């Protein structure tokens, strides 16, 4: 999952394949069913909970064209729906209603 995010964030060829043949692109990565579903459905909240590095995920959300407030809200929604972040160093430490930057 992280490798997919790394590749698509920095490689315009991978970005083109994402638009043209997502299934073929995802077949090239070692993804769990949950990871594949999260990518296919653009579920930023689930990717966050699964432990995607925050920087990888932030750039990916930008690639998807998500406005900042929607991206922050999607991560909160992921936590409320799927539970705490399961891996990595990008855990949520604030309360669900604590909008520290106003969004």
């Amino acid at each position: 999952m992280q490798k997919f995010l790394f590749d698509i964030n920095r490689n315009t060829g991978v970005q083109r394949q994402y638009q043209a043949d997502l299934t073929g692109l995802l077949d090239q990565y070692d993804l769990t069913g949950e990871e594949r579903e999260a990518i296919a459905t653009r579920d930023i909240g689930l990717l966050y909970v699964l432990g995607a590095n925050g920087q990888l995920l932030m750039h990916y959300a930008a690639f998807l064209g998500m406005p900042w407030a929607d991206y922050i809200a999607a991560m909160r929604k992921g936590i409320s729906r799927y539970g705490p972040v399961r891996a990595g160093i990008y855990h949520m430490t604030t309360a669900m209603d604590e909008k520290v930057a106003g969004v």
Partner: protein
Amino acid sequence: MSLVFAGIASHAPGITGRANLVDPAVAQEFHGAYRGMAQRLAAARPDALIVVAAEHFANFFMNNMPSFAVGMADRYEGPIEDPQWLGIPHTAVPGSAALSRRLIREMMQTVDLAYAEEWKFDHGIMVPLHFLTPRFDLPIVPMNINCQGPPLAPLHRAWAFGEALRRAADSVPERIGLVGTGGISHWPATPDSGKINEAWDLQFLQRWQVNDRPALLSYTDEATYRDAGQGGFEIRTFIAVAAAARGRGTVEYYRAIPMFAVGCTIADMGIGE
């Protein structure tokens, strides 16, 4: 010739990408401080600028992660991010492979480096350059300290990296500018984005200003993670600059701007003997 300028600056993508979401006076004040640093850098008449960055997976990934890497190319490009999102158009950035090679050879006397003949810049370098060399006309030597994928190099190794950088800069005929970019405390790219531990930041900057090596190296990653978030690991770039400059620092600007997700910082350091 030698190191002719040293400073530190924030690089958060919101500084350019979300400037329209903050009070215009606040954004202008900080951007003005950044341009002030650009003027002081230009006044030092550098032939090249070393940017010590903490990149975010534009080039280096956990499949093969160097603790320290130095670019060695005549041309770079960036940003990798959506230009509209970052507020910085995609552009070519000049480098100098020959200068990089000489710097790397000297630094390798004491620090094990990776070098990279290909390097794409992300916001960690593009945001500083947008203000410091807005015409992208000064050759850049990018350097990276892994602050993203633990295990991370210990702080004393970041210090040794800075010392090697200084020795290398002093060994070449060119006039070298140096800027370290990163955050102090911040929790970027999480729902916490905007959380800033201002007291922690100010204590770190105080230690940085007086170049207190033992105090700067006293942070453990566990304490930093707890008190300053995963973004706090980027203090490595600021510590490397202190080691390289060997002078006293002056904080020109500090203000916690939550929408920019970091305590926005502009500081210079004098070049010590």
